[in-house]
């Protein structure tokens, strides 16, 4: 016997009213990051000892720029989700917890946007 209402069951959002959205997004970005991480490592190899002109030339390749953008977006989103879980697990003071989660959310947005801007600027010629 279930004590949940039929409506609650069909909505599937659970006690936190969030459902499995966080879990799903974490896994989706994780799957995306498996190939993207290998690409990123190759990109780093190509940038070893590179000067600015080489960085511009490399990012000028649309494939490189787009895959870097995907890596950045998936990576920072994955980071936001993961850091939020770490904070929620270990910080028990409600105010500090909320402030930390906000800081992670805004911080990952800010850093992610900065990285996206940098890649686009390089891609369009530095």
């Amino acid at each position, binding site marked *: 016997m279930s004590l949940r209402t039929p409506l609650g069951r069909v909505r599937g959002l659970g006690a936190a009213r969030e459902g499995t959205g966080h879990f799903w997004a974490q896994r989706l970005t994780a799957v995306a990051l498996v190939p993207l991480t290998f690409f990123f490592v190759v990109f780093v190899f190509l940038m070893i000892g590179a000067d600015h002109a080489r960085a511009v030339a490399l990012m000028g390749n649309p494939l490189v720029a787009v895959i870097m953008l995907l890596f950045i977006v998936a990576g920072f989103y994955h980071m936001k989700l993961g850091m939020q879980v770490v904070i929620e697990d270990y910080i028990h003071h409600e105010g500090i917890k909320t402030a930390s989660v906000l800081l992670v959310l805004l911080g990952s947005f800010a850093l992610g946007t900065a990285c996206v801007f*940098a890649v686009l600027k390089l891609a369009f010629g*530095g």
Partner: protein
Amino acid sequence: MTTPYNGFARTVRGARDVRPENNKMAQSQRPLSPHLEIYKPQLTSVLSIFHRLTGVGLAVGTLFLTWWLIAAAIGPGAFETTQAFYGSWFGYLVLFGFSVCLFYHLCNGVRHLAWDLGYGFEIEDVYRSGWAMLATSVTLTAVAWMIGLRIGG
């Protein structure tokens, strides 16, 4: 005139205060459940803890990644400074830490995805995938550094 029935107020007044600070039971020396430091470290728990630690390490690493990309976007001067930093001994240390976290989190993340699909939950499978993950991440890190040092050194 009769007093209106106030069952709610009566219930509240009569209720036992269950807040821990006002509860004699909670203040008594009851046995606590054993916590992490009681247990002998096992491969399963240690790998799990390191998955979190490497995740936080990668989050710190994004600061260095952002600095590098932004410097490249600023121009040749700023980029030369960051490239020189990553060529210094401290830069190598940062890159080494980042690469260890990256490959560890990647390999153990794949292990987690397999669990999410329902595979590998038998205890011997968990240990086997744990050792395999460790070996793979060490190998990937070593190979990456051999390639990197060949290009850079």
